[in-house]
């Protein structure tokens, strides 16, 4: 390999590393958190939708709607869904279990985000298959470092 080829290889390798968000310790926490809920089971992207603002006004209250495409019949339904925040100090935000009288697998609430990160929604179906989606939210005022003043 000549010098030009070597430099090209190093350059493209470096680009590939820099493309996703730089890795933080928190990213491993969310992987562990997901594993502790769902085991190491494989997940597929799709069927779950997360609606969140692209830029949160404040990390203290970010509106979120999770919905899962499912007929919600007795034999084909969503059993439960979880919301994770990839860089919150505690990645698991909430777990929703949909009962027999759920009208749809849809849920809206307000969450706390410590900073810019990915919000991950995972749904487990009645056939025990797992589906996931991931949305990036930009946050300027984080929820976990507020209120250091007295008032």
């Amino acid at each position, binding site marked *: 390999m000549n010098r030009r080829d070597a430099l090209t290889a190093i350059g493209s390798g470096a680009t590939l590393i820099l493309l996703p968000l730089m890795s933080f310790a928190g990213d491993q926490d969310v992987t562990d958190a997901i594993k502790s809920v769902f085991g190491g089971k494989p997940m597929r992207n799709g069927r779950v939708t997360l609606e969140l*603002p692209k830029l949160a*006004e*404040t990390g*203290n*209250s970010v509106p979120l709607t999770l919905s899962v495409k499912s007929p919600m019949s007795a034999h084909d339904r969503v059993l439960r869904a979880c919301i994770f925040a990839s860089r919150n100090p505690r990645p698991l935000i909430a777990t929703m279990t949909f009962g027999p009288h759920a009208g749809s697998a849809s849920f809206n609430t307000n969450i706390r985000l410590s900073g810019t990160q990915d919000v991950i929604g995972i749904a487990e179906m009645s056939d025990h298959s797992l589906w996931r989606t991931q949305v990036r939210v930009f946050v*300027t*005022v984080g929820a976990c470092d507020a209120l250091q*003043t007295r*008032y």
Partner: protein
Amino acid sequence: MLRQGLLGIAVTIWTLQLPTHADNANSQPRSGYSFLSAETRRMQDDDFANPGMLWVEEGRKLWNQPDAPGGKSCQSCHANPEQSMRGTTTHFPRYSAAAGRVINLEQQINRCRVENMKSSPLAYETETLLALTNFISHQAKGMTIDVAVDGPAAPSFERGKESFYMRRGQLNLSCANCHEQHVGGRLHGEPISQGQINGFPIYRQLWQTSGSTHRMFAWCNEAVRAEPYPAGSQEYVDLELFERWRGRGLSVETPAVRR
């Protein structure tokens, strides 16, 4: 020649009075609502999803609740709040002859509790006092703020105005430095509003609870590293009066949702 000279002087005087950026920012009072994102505005406008309504509903319950040891409730004297309290908050703070000074809504409630209900005063930022101020102010939602700053209220108003323009704290900033000179700018990524108080008590996302103007003033003072005045202090009531005058024409939005 004389006419041209006089014309020149007149033009100069007129030019000097042209609105500067600061004047433009304040020629029209703007509610903090106009500085919110679409999602937060939706939350404020939704009578169920607005967290401040939790305090309004609690206030509705407290209104009818007799309080020991007098055994009276707000309802005993003021009957139906939708009528008796309609528009009340638009005139507060106001001069009280009985108190001999300008008082705000919290102080009026506590005066009623102590003197008429033979009960005890409520502290600022307690769930009960916030519930009552939220509930009473909410009865005037949509109505125009209209405080009296002349006559016996004039000294309080002048003190409040002086306070608004006075630099303070280690950062040596006055309210006007941000809330007049940098309206529309950003601080830590957040838009700077005019700092109006037409929505108070507000549900503040930062506090994750409802809060009064005095809590807000104390927070702002501490933010510029100035020692805050105590809640209920005359300094803060004077500032409230000036702020309400500054926002005259805006409508009551209680309970507003803010960052």
